[in-house]
Each structure stands twice: as structure tokens, then as C-alpha cells.
């Protein structure tokens, strides 16, 4: 009996743990106190997944999610976008789904720095990541509408926006981004 009461009390504590913390006078619900529970409202890995391939109604679902469930939650919709909306074949859809989900920038830190660039980990067994100079708009356009992954059903006028670099040069030293305008 005693054990059961203790177990129930423990369960109750778990169930209302967040609320209990809110009653703590030391808690700062607008500051950054250690007992504050933060809830994720925004998530971004690759510069493509949610914005392009997922319907707006599902963006909150993606924003609140985690990479470990991305394949289960978002792969079918991503592939359907590529085949249905962009009109490409299943090979293109499957390739994009495989490299973009789970939605993380993949970096192979043991590969040469010279091989860094968006998706080079998948395309060339390179460093991967995403460089400031990467033209990810064109990369995305070429993958979805151009011949990068398949020669079929390409849309040549839509495969580049012809803006290939930033308006200000990046620095070669920290913090790399150009100073504010």
C-alpha cells in the first residue's frame, strides 16, 4: 500500500512537473532561468525541406518536430511534391528524399575542406555542410527542375535565377559574414 501511494505520488509529480515549476518563486517565465521549459517553434536544417516540399499546413508539424522522425513524418509528402508538383520521375523524388531527410546539414568532418558544400557529402562523398557561397537556390532549382538528377521533364528557364553570389564579399576570417550595411 505504502509503495502504491509513493508510486502514485511520483506519477502525479511527473504529470504536473512543469506546472509545479511555474509555482516556484524563483522561476522566471520570461527570462532564461534554468527551470524554464522552452518549447520549439522553429527548426531548420537543409534550405529546402519545409519551405518547398511541405504544404503550409504541415509547417508547424515540421517546425515542432525532430530529425529522428522526419522520414516517417515527411518523406511521403516530399516525394509527392517532386513527382506531382514538379512533374519529375520517382528516381528524382527518392534521391531528394534520401539526401534531405532527416532534415540536417550533414558534415563529414574527416573529408577535405576543399570538398565542402551543400549536399557534397551525398553527391561526391565530400565534406558537405553548407558554405556561405553555395548557390542553394540554383542547386535546388537544378535538382527539382533541371537535369542534375534526371534528364527527363526539365524546365530550362527555371533552372537558375542568375543571381550567383552575394552582393558583398564574405570574409576569409571569423565571423565570415560581411559587416552590416
Amino acid at each position: 500500500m505504502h509503495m502504491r501511494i509513493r508510486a502514485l505520488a511520483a506519477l502525479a509529480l511527473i504529470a504536473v512537473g512543469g506546472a509545479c515549476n511555474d509555482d516556484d518563486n524563483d522561476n522566471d517565465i520570461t527570462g532564461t532561468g534554468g527551470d524554464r521549459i522552452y518549447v520549439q517553434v522553429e527548426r531548420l536544417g537543409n534550405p529546402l525541406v519545409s519551405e518547398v516540399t511541405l504544404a503550409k499546413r504541415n509547417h508547424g508539424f515540421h517546425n515542432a518536430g525532430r530529425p529522428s522522425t522526419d522520414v516517417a513524418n515527411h518523406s511521403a509528402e516530399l516525394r509527392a511534391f517532386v513527382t506531382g508538383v514538379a512533374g519529375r520521375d520517382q528516381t528524382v523524388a527518392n534521391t531528394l528524399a534520401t539526401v534531405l531527410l532527416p532534415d540536417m546539414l550533414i558534415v563529414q568532418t574527416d573529408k577535405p575542406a576543399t570538398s565542402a558544400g551543400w549536399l557534397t557529402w551525398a553527391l561526391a562523398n565530400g565534406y558537405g555542410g553548407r558554405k556561405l557561397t553555395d548557390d542553394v537556390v540554383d542547386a535546388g532549382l537544378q535538382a527539382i527542375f533541371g537535369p542534375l538528377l534526371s534528364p527527363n521533364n526539365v524546365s530550362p528557364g527555371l533552372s537558375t535565377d542568375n543571381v550567383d553570389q552575394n552582393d558583398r564579399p564574405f570574409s576569409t576570417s571569423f565571423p565570415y559574414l560581411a559587416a552590416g550595411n
Partner: protein
Amino acid sequence: MPKLLARRHRWALLAGIGALTITLAVARSSSASDHQDTPEVELSQRMDINDVYAFPGSSADRIALVLTTSSPITPAQSAAAGFDPNLLYQLKVDNTGDGVEDKVFQITFTGTGSSQQVTVRGPVAPAQTGPMNTIVPNAPTLTGTTNTTVGSAAGIQAFAGIRDDPFFLDLEQFFRIVPDRKPVSGELSQLPDQPSATAFRPANQAVDYLRGLNTLAIVLELPSAMLTDGGTRKIGIWGTISR
């Protein structure tokens, strides 16, 4: 400034062209899905992550991580621009290939405007994985003032503050191709309501719409081994904003 310019929305570019393809191929459909952000994030520029970058640092064994938010910020707005002291900014790293974070950076701010203090914790194992997090109990790795570089060039370095938005694209031409995606206010809203182009402009006419516009950037650099520690040398990186 129109919220449509935020990076997540810029990718509406591709979505919009996809929608155009369908419009051409099937029939005019006004119900083509919209690929912008959630209404809450769309209306709260400070909750929007524009871009995440990861690239080699000052030497082969170092890595730089960048998270940008709140773009576009005009030069006039920049002096007063700051991070939200009520938000938790994180960069998360999976080093075991399971899509679960093994190391996190937690970045918070106190104060407002251009004289904020930034606090960086990590890289450290998170107190909880997934979308609900508390601040790790560890002491801050770095603290300092925004818009200055803090830390050590041989260890962990951090910068948080105003920078030129590193993203680039011809957003105006995009909205000429797919005007149903254009913003409801600002100069881009004045473009024709019907499509006035079917392709991007040639290189000598294309315009980077983000020229001269700023963003709030968090830049970190550290030895890669601090992220691969306990795992493999293939890692996955993503950014989050929590409130």
C-alpha cells in the same frame, strides 16, 4: 518589410514555380498549396530562422556554424536591432546517425537593442532531447557583448549581431513569375497581379533582392572534435528557436 522575404519564405520561390508548373500542366487552380511558414512564425520575424550554415573554419580541424534570423533588416533599422531575450536559440548536433541531438549549443541574450549580452552554453549533451528543452546546468562557455567577437581563436569563438544577409536570389523576378506568392505590403506587393514573366532574368539583368539588407547572425567556430566527441566524424546539424 514584407515577411515574405524571410528565408523560409524565399524558398516559396521553388514551391511557387512548382505550383506554376501544375497550373500550366493541369488547369488554373487557386488552391495550389502555399509553402510559407506557419502564421505565428510568419508574423514573428524574430522566431524565424533564415538559414543555417556549416563549413570548415580557420584550419582543417575547425568548423564554423552560422544561424541567421530576423531578416530582412534595413540599415536604418539595424542600430536598434537585437535578438529576443525571451527566446532560446540552439544549434544541435547528431553524431551517431540517429537524428537525435548528442551535442547542443544554447544561445541566450539579456538586454535589448545593440547593447545586448550574449551567453553561449555548449557544446554539451542536452538536458533533454527533442522539442522541449531546459537550459543545461553547465556554466556558460562564453559571455560577451553582441556585435563583438568573443572567445579564443584556438578554442571556441562566437559572434552574435548584425551582418549583411548572406543569402542571395532574384526575388522580384520570382514574384513576376508567380505573383500569387507576392507579399501583401511593401514594394514587391506593387508588382502585377497576373504573371508578367515565365522565366528568370538573364544574368546581366538579374537582381539580388537582398543586396544592402541585413540579418541577425550567430556565428560559432570551434574544433570539430568537440562535436564528434563520443560519436562518429559524420554529423548532422540543425538550428531551432524555442520560447
